[in-house]
């Protein structure tokens, strides 16, 4: 019969590279009990340390796999977001051109307003002037609003067309 070898907490601590306290907790967790005056049975200690190392490695590889899955999911989300945004994007130059056209037409109407309205407000007091001018300039503003609404509708229609093309 081979002689049983015992190891003290301090010996295991030096060997395994963990604190004495950690050794005691680990042995208690694994159900390894110390024999008074001798220490822990070496065979039980080796089995406990082996199992602990195996568990740590399993945990580390599971964490690494989890990280990889998370990174893949984040990359997929970024790609999805980019694709969605691409479908909702319009060219700045195109927007600029149509808005500019609407503004130019509006400014022409604004410039023509004094000639048209000056005779209408002649010989009138401030209150009567406002009664003439407010609706006149409200109409002008509405003209610009209609033009910009048409711009907005055409942009939305373009997005819907693209969306339909993407789905088909």
């Amino acid at each position, binding site marked *: 019969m081979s002689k049983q070898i015992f190891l003290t907490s301090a010996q295991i601590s030096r060997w395994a590279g963990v604190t004495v306290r950690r050794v005691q907790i680990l042995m208690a967790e694994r159900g390894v009990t110390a024999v008074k005056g001798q220490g822990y049975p070496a065979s039980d200690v080796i089995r406990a340390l082996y199992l602990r190392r195996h568990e740590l490695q399993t945990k580390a590889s599971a964490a690494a796999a989890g990280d990889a899955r998370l990174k893949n999911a984040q990359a997929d989300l970024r790609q999805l977001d980019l694709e969605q*945004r*691409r479908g*909702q*994007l*319009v*060219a*700045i130059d195109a*927007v*600029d051109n149509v*808005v*500019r056209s609407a*503004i130019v037409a*509006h*400014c022409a109407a*604004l*410039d023509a*307003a*004094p*000639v048209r*309205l*000056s*005779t209408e*407000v*002649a*010989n*009138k*007091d*401030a*209150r009567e*002037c*406002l009664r003439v*001018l*407010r609706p006149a*300039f*409200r109409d*002008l*503003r509405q003209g*610009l*609003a209609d033009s*910009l609404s048409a*711009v*907005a509708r055409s*942009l*939305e229609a373009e*997005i819907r067309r693209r969306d339909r093309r993407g789905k088909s």
Partner: protein
Amino acid sequence: MIPVDDVLELLADLLAGHGRLLDDMVDRIAARITPEMTAAEIEAEMKLETQRAGVELDDLLAASRAELARRSVDD
């Protein structure tokens, strides 16, 4: 390229800003005009104001363009 929602928001802002400018302009014109003024004098006063409104609209448009550029997205 720019998200279409941003364009719509900026167009709405532009229109709202210009609406306020026109309201102020009308108030200024009405405050300056008197019953004694001739049509030509009124026309001159109104021209000054509409030109000013045009310049202010240009400023609004420039600000909108700058905002469009700021919100642009690489495609």
